[in-house]
Each structure stands twice: as structure tokens, then as C-alpha cells.
């Protein structure tokens, strides 16, 4: 899955960049409050999605608004703040998983997603409006038509020339941090293991605002522990120090999303 190799890259990047201190804590001004790209606080985007869910192809049309700002500075010069957003749209992908696993979504073809995150910067080059490189990390929580979830997002933005900014982000919700809405009465409950890789290009207009072009790649699994299948774990149990001999090895797992979203928008 998308997660497997990106997780290592993510951890290595966070580890390395967080050790450096490239910006003075005292050199902040209003231009440093931007959480969207390198220069903006609010963005409105429309996106068209295609791909498959549970192996059945379909399409999506989605509107997204997101925004936020930094307003705190740590003693290391990193900044912290709040970001949030909402998605609303038509979801033509399949809502019904094969087999006995419960349907995650509580809606049929409507899609919504609300989230609230707390971004912080890790490493930056340049100050104020001259900032040309930033990496950051955002823990957050969300609520969609499919699940309640926590997420962690890493992002990196680079200014290219005078009018282009390229931003890449990777967002991950592990199964453990997701509870699907359609499975509240099932024990043990099911969850989504969801990863989103997004590339955004900001083209700065003369007004100081930007056009945005985005491309998302989403992959998810619907997972649920299966205690009934733990007999194999008992058979494998020979050494108490082997922590892997438990029912969490025995997951009912099915591929859910594997799709792409292309969008265009405007940032203030």
C-alpha cells in the first residue's frame, strides 16, 4: 500500500528536518501566518475524482474549502496554529464492501468531510514574505460520512521562481485512529487505514492571490480484527516475548479507495 514506503520516508524527513533550527524565533511578521502553501490563509477548490472503491469503478465531484493560520512561536522558532476545512460533494464510488464487513458510510451518494488540525512548522528557510521553503507537521481530527478519525499530515512547500509554489503533503489515518460510522455495534469495530498523497501547484497572480492546481492520490483499506480466527495465534504461541502473537494479526481486510482527484481553485 501507499503507506508502506511513504511511512518510512515521512518519518525520516520529520526526524531530520526537526533537528535543524534555520529561523530565528524573533524574526516573525504577519507574512508568516500562512498555512496554505507559502502565502495564503484560505483556499476554495473544486475537484473531479475517478478510480475505484471495493473494486468497483466510479466518479466523484467535490467542493472543498480550507484555511488556517499560525499565531504562536516556540522557543525553537517553529510556529503553531490552527487549520480546518470541509468537503462536500457527490460520491459515485461503491459504498458496499464485499463479504461480511459492515458498510462504513452512513450515506449513499453524498460525501462530506470536516476536519480540524493543529499545524506546526519544522524547518523553514527565508523569513516573512521571503520565505521559500517550509516543512511542517499537523495532527488533527475529522468527521466524515464514513468515519470519525484522527490524522497526521506532513507537508513540504518550495517556492520555484517568483510566481510558482509547489507543495506536497502526505496524510495518514491508521486503522487504530479510525472508527467507521456503520460499525458502532460491531465488536471489535472496524476502521479505515487511509493515506492521501497530494501535490499542489500555486500560481501567483498580480493581485497577490493564487490559482491552485491539485492532484490527490487516495488509498484506503477497511479493516477489522477477527478474534474468531485467533486459533492460529494460539498455535503459533511458543514464546511469551513474541508480541506479534495476538488477534491483531488476524484482520479482516479489504481494499477500499484507490482513486485520484484533480482540482482547480483559488487562494486568498
Amino acid at each position, binding site marked *: 500500500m501507499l503507506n508502506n514506503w511513504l511511512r518510512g520516508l515521512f518519518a525520516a524527513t*520529520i*526526524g531530520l528536518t*526537526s*533537528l535543524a533550527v534555520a529561523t530565528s524565533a524573533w524574526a516573525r511578521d504577519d507574512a508568516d501566518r500562512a498555512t496554505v502553501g507559502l502565502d495564503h490563509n484560505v483556499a476554495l477548490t473544486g475537484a473531479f475524482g475517478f478510480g475505484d472503491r471495493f473494486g468497483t469503478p466510479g466518479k466523484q465531484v467535490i467542493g472543498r474549502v480550507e484555511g488556517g493560520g499560525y499565531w*504562536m512561536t*516556540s*522557543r*525553537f522558532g*517553529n510556529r*503553531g*496554529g*490552527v487549520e480546518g476545512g470541509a468537503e462536500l460533494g457527490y460520491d459515485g464510488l461503491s459504498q458496499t464492501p464485499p463479504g461480511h464487513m459492515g458498510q462504513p458510510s452512513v450515506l449513499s451518494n453524498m460525501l462530506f468531510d470536516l476536519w*480540524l488540525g*493543529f499545524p*506546526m512548522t*519544522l524547518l523553514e528557510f527565508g523569513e516573512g514574505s521571503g520565505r521559500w521553503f517550509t516543512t511542517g*507537521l499537523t*495532527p488533527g481530527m475529522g468527521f466524515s460520512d464514513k468515519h470519525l478519525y*484522527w490524522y*497526521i499530515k506532513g507537508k513540504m512547500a518550495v517556492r520555484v521562481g517568483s510566481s510558482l509554489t509547489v507543495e506536497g503533503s502526505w496524510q495518514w489515518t*491508521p*486503522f*487504530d*485512529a479510525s*472508527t467507521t460510522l456503520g460499525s458502532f455495534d460491531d*465488536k*471489535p*469495530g472496524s476502521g479505515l487505514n487511509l493515506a492521501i498523497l497530494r501535490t499542489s501547484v500555486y500560481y501567483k497572480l498580480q493581485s497577490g492571490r493564487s490559482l491552485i492546481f491539485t492532484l490527490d492520490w487516495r488509498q484506503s483499506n477497511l479493516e477489522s*480484527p*477477527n*478474534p*474468531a*480466527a*485467533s*486459533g492460529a*495465534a*494460539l498455535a503459533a*504461541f511458543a514464546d*511469551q516475548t513474541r*508480541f*506479534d*502473537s*495476538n*488477534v*491483531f494479526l488476524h484482520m479482516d481486510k479489504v481494499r477500499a479507495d484507490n482513486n485520484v482527484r484533480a482540482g482547480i481553485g483559488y487562494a486568498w
Partner: protein
Amino acid sequence: MQARSKSVFGSPAGTNRQAARFGCTRRQRTKLFLDVQSRRAGMSDSRATIVPHRLELNRVRQRLVALVLPVVLLLPGTMLPCAAWADSGFEMMRAYSTYIGTFGEFGRTEYGGGKLNPGTQSAYGFRYYERQGIITGTVTAILLAMGAAQEANSAKSVESHKSGNYVVTTTTYHSASERAAIMASGTAAAGAAASAKDQSFDLEIFSRNLGGTASGWRMNSYYGFPFWRMMFEFGLGLGSIDTALLVKGQSVYSSYAYWGMPMRLDYGGEFAWFFLEADWNFAGYGYRANLAPTVKGDALLLRSIDKLPWKLGVASSILGGRIFGEAVATTPGISSAEFAIKTTVGVRF
């Protein structure tokens, strides 16, 4: 013994009343159930005897580690020249601090079967922690602002009277000046909540991706009231954690839910931080809080949620550049000699 156990413990419908009738506590009943189930699972004699032995060894080792590790972490701060690396307990309590890292928790925990305490936890996961941060205040401010907006725009009074064949209902809404006053009051309260200095937030995601026995998440958000070198904190806690253990060869699956009010009394020492913590858990009330053990496949399912699990703890940390290490030892009772230790290694921002 086996025939009696089968009638009492082999049924998913076993109740406290039955346990009382047979003269044993719930905890004893679970232990007996585990004994019976391990025999039923067709374990060889050698496994049935070796596994408990290993469990005991693990518990002894664990208690030793729980005692020794905090001392080892405290020593550099108190005796060695690298004392500057250690965070003082008081600073940990009163200064801005945010870190993200991984944690491991070992030993007796409230989410691993509650008072039934079927076995030893070894949980791993990701942790986000902040003191004097923004999350608790922001979420509270959003709720206060939403409440003020709801109050300002809802009906002030609704009166009905009968007039002939009709029921006439008169709804009165707040005037413009009243709405403005309510919103001003709500905004001021939201602003105060968001900017409160002594607030903290702790999120743990127990990840099976890192191994261990637990899967799920738990968060505590606090407002603090400092006095002298101490602080009283309380707030909101939520969580949902599933644990899977092997006890005497029996697969035990425990389901834990948490929503309630965490409370802590902290004392910031020179190089350590002591606390008494009680997490009042509203999920511990009601008929789903404590269910009789049931069998699903080869696993024993437990649900035992304590209403007010409390613990004494000591925490010590080391800060080297941005790398942050913390060890916490807790005990659920002074005389129980049962410990849990939690270690966190992360990056501080």
C-alpha cells in the same frame, strides 16, 4: 472442578449473581475461566505449566524495570554535570512544551481489562503532547462560540393559548441588542478559554503497526489551576482501546471505552514531576460497562471498565537539543506492588 466451571463459566450468560452464588469474585471467576479454557484449547501439559511461569517472570522483570528506570533517569538530573539537559518538573508543568513521538507502555493499565487485570500489557503507539498550547482552548472556544450563537438565535419564549377552535402559539425571539449582548458575552468567554495559559492536551494512538497488544486511541485535555509548586487539572477525556493478550495460552480480547473527566494533582519537583491522577470514566456506568466474559471463536472477550481508576505517578524527562525523552512510572495503589511504566521518545518543537 472442571464440570462446575463448565456450568458457571462456559456460558456467555454468566452473571455477577451467578458468581456470587458460587462464592467467587469476578476477578477470580475470570482467572478460573482462563484455566478452564486453556485446558479446553488442548494445550499440552508443558505449555500449560511453562506459560504461567514465563508470565510470572515477566511480571517480576517488569516491576524491577519500573522501579529502576525512573531512578536511572533521575540520576543524571540530580547528580551529574549534564543536569542542564534535564527538564525540571516545575518547568514541565508550567512552560510551553509540545512534542510528537512514539511511546511504549508496559504493565498494569486501566484499559487492559480493568480490575480483572487478566495479563501484562505492552502497548506501543504515537503520542502528541502539549502544555500551554492551543488545542484545548481552541476546541473549548469553538464550543462556546457555537453555544452563544445558538442561544442568541433561538426562541426566548414560546407561549400557547386556546382561542376558539384554534391553538395560538406566540414565539418571542431575542431583540437585536439582546443578541449582541449574548454574542459579546460568548465571544469574551471563548477568547478567555482560548487564551488560558495553563491548558494541556495529550493524544495517544495505540498502533498495532508498531506491535504490542493495544489498538485504539485516547485523549485527555486539561485546564490547570496552579498554586505554589502544584497544579490541579481537570478537563475532558475520550478514548476507545481494544487490547489482545495471551494469558496462559488463552487469547483474551478486551474492549475499553472512555469518556469522562480526567483529574490530576501535580507537584513539580526539581527534576521530577509527581502526580495523583483519577480519570472519572462515565463509560464505567451502565449495563455495558461490565459484561460477563464471553467466547468468540478461540478468544475470550472481556469488557470491564473502572469508574474511577486512579494512580500515583512520577515522571522525569531529558531534553537533548530537540530530542525529548520521558519516563513515567505509575502504580494503581500504594500496596499493590503493581506498576506500569510509560516511556516516550520524540521531537520537541
